[in-house]
């Protein structure tokens, strides 16, 4: 049976494009900016992984930036192939189009003449699809931090079912004041750096990203072996401290991909650096894997890019392995569980089976299994 493969990727992160992001990771020198967010009684400056060339909270700017990333993949397809390519978006971004409509109609002093231009969270995708000659089928998945990882699984289903020959899956997260203030209200933001699985971890650093992968059944060294996604949690924002919900999704992903834990070369953790989530995740890793499992976290390099992290971290992980290594986990000094320590140094690696985990609010948990053939 033919497999669905990752044929190409493109990205824009706080560190730049794919090549620049890889360079930042290799030199362990990640650029961080700052933004102001509201707290209950004040505003504070927080570290934030922002794009170098700021994409403003403006729909035209955002669309232009997404189009550039998508086009870098679609340009490599023929017209016939593009017509058989679906565009699937994953994002947790607050819908600024709706905010604009509220402002234009709900307040007298902001009132604007009525215009019936269709605007939804998926409008950018539809417009980009038309402009680039892709198939008109677009879909936006919004499942918080698992959004674009789940979008990838949807794309895989559509290709396996023969509905489309290819899909471009794009993860999008641009700075949103409302979203940032929301994380601040939940006291989840670090004022310093992300310290994944470290005893001194104190929260996450948000980031902007637009990342895309082209998937299809053409030959590729990168194969999407499978994955699993479910909705299982203790509350809407937390899982059990044991991480039982996470270990369940990891095991099911491996079962569906016909992979045993011992076959997994390395694991990319979700690793938000928040006290509760990292504890649950490392407990789940302990439940599923032996202590010698190689695992790492990418968020200290690019921030937590929420709905975009599924595809961004997939693309970054692939670019690192293509370059012959798995990155070390930055800012880690003492592990929560002493037997389970994330990579302290880059590990040489150019092939293998890899698990990539993503966990989000709303109980959404996703585990992807990818494989790179040895050359």
């Amino acid at each position, binding site marked *: 049976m033919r497999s669905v493969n990752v044929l190409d990727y493109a990205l824009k992160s706080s560190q730049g494009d794919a090549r620049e992001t890889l360079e930042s990771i290799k030199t362990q020198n990640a650029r961080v900016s700052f933004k102001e967010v509201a707290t209950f009684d004040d505003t504070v400056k927080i570290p934030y992984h922002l794009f170098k060339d700021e994409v403003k909270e403006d729909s035209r700017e955002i669309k232009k930036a997404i189009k550039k990333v998508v086009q870098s993949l679609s340009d490599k397809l023929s017209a016939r192939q593009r017509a058989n390519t679906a565009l699937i978006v994953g994002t947790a971004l607050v819908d600024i189009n709706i905010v604009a409509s509220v402002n234009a109609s709900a307040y007298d002093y902001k009132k604007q003449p009525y215009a019936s231009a269709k*605007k*939804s969270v998926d*409008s950018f995708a539809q417009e980009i699809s038309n402009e680039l000659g892709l198939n008109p089928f677009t879909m936006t998945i919004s499942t918080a931090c698992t959004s674009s990882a789940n979008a990838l699984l949807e794309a895989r289903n559509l290709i*396996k079912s023969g509905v489309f020959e290819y899909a471009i899956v794009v993860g999008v997260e641009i700075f949103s004041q409302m979203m940032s203030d929301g*994380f601040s209200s939940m006291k989840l933001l670090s004022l310093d750096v992300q310290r994944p699985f470290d005893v001194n971890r104190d929260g996450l650093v948000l980031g902007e990203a637009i990342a895309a992968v082209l998937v299809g059944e053409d030959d590729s060294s990168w194969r999407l072996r499978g994955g699993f996604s479910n909705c299982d949690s203790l509350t809407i924002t937390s899982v059990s401290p044991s991480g039982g919900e996470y270990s369940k999704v990891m095991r099911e992903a491996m079962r569906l991909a016909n992979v045993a834990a011992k076959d997994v070369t390395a694991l990319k953790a979700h690793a938000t650096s928040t006290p509760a989530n990292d504890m649950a995740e490392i407990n789940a890793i302990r439940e599923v894997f032996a202590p010698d499992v190689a695992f790492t976290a990418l968020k200290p390099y690019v921030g937590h890019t929420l709905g975009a992290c599924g595809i961004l971290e997939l693309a970054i992980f692939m670019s690192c392995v293509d370059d012959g290594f798995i990155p070390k986990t930055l800012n880690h000094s003492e592990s929560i569980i002493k037997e389970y320590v994330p990579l302290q140094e880059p590990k040489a690696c150019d092939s293998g089976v890899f698990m990539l985990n993503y966990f989000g609010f709303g109980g959404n948990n996703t585990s992807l299994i990818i494989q790179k053939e040895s050359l």
Partner: protein
Amino acid sequence: MKLYVKAFSSYRGDLNAFDVKKELKTKYKLDTRRQDSFIHLAVYGAQLLKDKIEINSNDELYVTSGVGNIDVLQKTNNYVHEEKEFIKPFDFINMLGNTTSYYVASSLGLKDKNAFQISDNFTFINTLVSVCASLNASKKEAILGSVDLSTNPEEVIKRVLGVSEETKVTSGVNYQKLSLSSLGALAEVEFDAKIHSLDEVEALLKKTKSKVVVSMRCERLDSKKDNEFFETMPSHYLNQAIETKEDLVYVDCFDDRYKIMKVNVLI
């Protein structure tokens, strides 16, 4: 592509208005705190479905909408930007699309796949395509909820949906339990990802003996059109076809592109 409907539920605010939140608390004994009208509507429709059919914990859940939870965005936008208040954590959480599908899953005891998805135009038919592809892979069954909430003022949602100012918009929720198997099915739904031309649609409509409903967006089609609107209207007409035991062809349109959903009632 084909899916079979095993059960369905519908609620439309304009036809049968009552306090949905109160009904969730009193009839279904559900905790409605920290939720808002959009979530209440979605959960209420799910409970109506649960009244009709057994829900398996590994059923896949899809929730789709024209624009999502506009209620919480409007409310939060108002107090954050107009009244300069600090965003409340649960309003922030409710802004995330999958919060609605989380509450639906919790109320139904679902523990499997849970996707909140939106598609620009054709959102219901495109979600059927997605559900069908997913069930082909998983061999499970799926619950599909379609939720649309109107706003006050209505102009907000009309601007977002891109409909004329005179259009009647309604709040509604419709669910189907969907399967690849025809065993015990109430109806067969046919659809595909393909875009049809006006000529193709006109040819099909000439041949069909089924009832035809055409979205009000199909301006160039000379046919009876629905007179009110929400983005997931085809889901409502699918349920209505089963209710009235009348086969249906539904035509949706945007930018001169057409999609078709056929419903063959099996009971």
